[in-house]
């Protein structure tokens, strides 16, 4: 779906007063969503700031990076940042590729257990993941995987939702492509990689963006499976910063650090995020 400007009931003639009022209302709402982020950035660049007090000085004098220096000196923030980047990158790449493979198999394959496995996958998709957090920890601790990248990345290395998404994408490709590839002597892997996968790249991109954002922002699970500071992801680490009661400057520099990467992805990939929502209705 594209959020296109069609079929609104307001086909009435342009009314400048009405339009102005609408713009004012929209700006007020925008102020509530953007304002806190602007203040966050401003405070993170302010010298020696213990509390955020209103009225706030939006452009601090002088502008300083000392809060960020303090953050990196006092906490493992750099390490958390590395962990988050690494985990999100591997999780996204892995999840998208395995979803693409499995989606292909469920769309085209003819093998034993297809229906059973597919139904089981469907079952997982509707389960609330928070209900499974404690048992997941129990299993991981028995496997000795607490505080490991395996635990952080593992569940993200496959995506049931992604498998469904990609299955749909593959189903929309005519079988003629497969037949042509087979006649040309391609095996299954070549058919998948060379002929069909290039046609589902948009779906894979949508999935990749959803997975990246979901992984980067996830909190509960990575918090549970890590107890050592140097294994935490950025969000989990920032959670500890928030609870530690430091200065506002330190807190906001952490918030900026957690915010910027998602903002960047959002700006670059907005189209895919919006499409992802309309496709799934659930966060990836």
């Amino acid at each position, binding site marked *: 779906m594209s959020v296109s400007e069609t079929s609104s009931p307001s086909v009435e003639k342009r009314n400048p007063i009405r339009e102005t009022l609408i713009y004012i209302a929209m700006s007020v709402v*925008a102020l509530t969503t953007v304002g*806190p982020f602007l203040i966050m950035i401003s405070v993170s660049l302010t010298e020696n700031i213990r509390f955020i007090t209103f009225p706030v000085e939006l452009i601090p004098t002088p502008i300083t990076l000392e809060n960020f220096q303090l953050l990196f000196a006092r906490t493992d923030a750099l390490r958390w940042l590395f962990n988050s980047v690494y985990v999100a990158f591997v999780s996204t790449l892995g999840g998208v590729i*395995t979803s693409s493979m499995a989606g292909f198999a469920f769309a085209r394959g003819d093998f034993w257990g297809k229906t059973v496995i597919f139904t089981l996958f469907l079952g997982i998709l509707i389960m609330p993941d928070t209900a499974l957090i*404690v048992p997941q920890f129990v*299993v991981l601790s028995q496997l000795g995987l607490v505080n490991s990248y395996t635990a952080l990345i593992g569940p993200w290395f496959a995506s049931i939702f992604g498998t469904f998404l990609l299955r749909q994408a593959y189903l929309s490709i005519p079988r003629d492509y497969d037949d042509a590839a087979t006649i040309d002597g391609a095996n299954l892997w070549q058919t998948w990689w060379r002929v069909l996968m290039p046609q589902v790249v948009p779906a894979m991109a949508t999935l990749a963006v959803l997975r990246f954002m979901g992984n980067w922002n996830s909190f509960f699970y990575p918090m549970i499976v890590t107890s050592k500071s140097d294994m935490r992801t950025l969000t989990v680490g920032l959670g500890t910063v928030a609870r530690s009661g430091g200065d506002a400057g330190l807190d*906001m520099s952490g918030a900026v650090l957690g915010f910027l990467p998602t903002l960047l992805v*959002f700006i670059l990939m907005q189209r895919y995020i919006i499409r992802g929502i309309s496709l799934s209705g659930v966060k990836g």
Partner: protein
Amino acid sequence: MAAASPSQRATSQFLRRLRRSLPWYPFIIVNTVIFLVFNLVPWISMFRYSVLKTDLLSTREFVGLDHFVTMLTDAKLHKAMLNTVWFTVMYIPLLVAVSLGVAVLVNRPLRGMKAFRALYFLPNITSVAVLSLIFRRFLSPRPDGPINFLIGLVGIPPQKWLIDVNQAMPSIVGISLWEAFGYFMVIWLAGLQAIPSELYDAAKVDGANGWRLHRYVTIPLLRPTAAFIIVIATIGALQVFGSIFILTGGGPVNATTTVVYQIYSEAFNFGRFGYASALSILFFVIILIVALIQSRYLRFGEDIY
């Protein structure tokens, strides 16, 4: 006798089927293994541990269904369930109203509309840790704290927000609302834009205008979207955790202890992994029932044409 016996034929059929199946398994093997390790095995262990009393270290004792009996008299759990209901009852109507209101507001062919939508979506792409860092400061009880200052402009005295027993949960509701409304706005917009404009034209020919246009065209046609949103949002609301964990730790005096927080706390604060597993089962059943009732009551996805 006939050439091939039935069993021989079955065997050759079996082999042919196997030969056809085998090449496909490598494509699903990673997904299946991950599913086994991170979902199926934990599911089984959830049931196994629900009848044990264990801290995962030294003690491990079979207690049968004791945990489920304990639940009946566990006052903290009952409080947590009430809190979860309280959160959901405050959050869902507000969320539906605000996200629909904003969707209607931006569903116009005006210049810059896409930019506004993107700005409304901003809180939703932000992690709960970042939101909590910001709002812990914004909801400061100081009279010159951001929110207290702003309400002071309209003459409301400073409030204690997160550290007040009665205001902590509404504060969490506010943060969750702020975070989520842009997301649900996008879903509403999809629903609004799926309404054919001919229906509005037809209604206008029939003399409907303004509010009546919405009453007889927009609202009935948005019913499936509404049902979808309510079900999804409720399931999300029942699972609220991150902001509570970071901002209030379930307090003050258990005022924000939800069922999920209680499960977390039993396991990781008190080392009662058996009881926490039993609570996980309870929680799963609750979510399932809520989702089923809502889907049925709201006639989810019913064709309205």
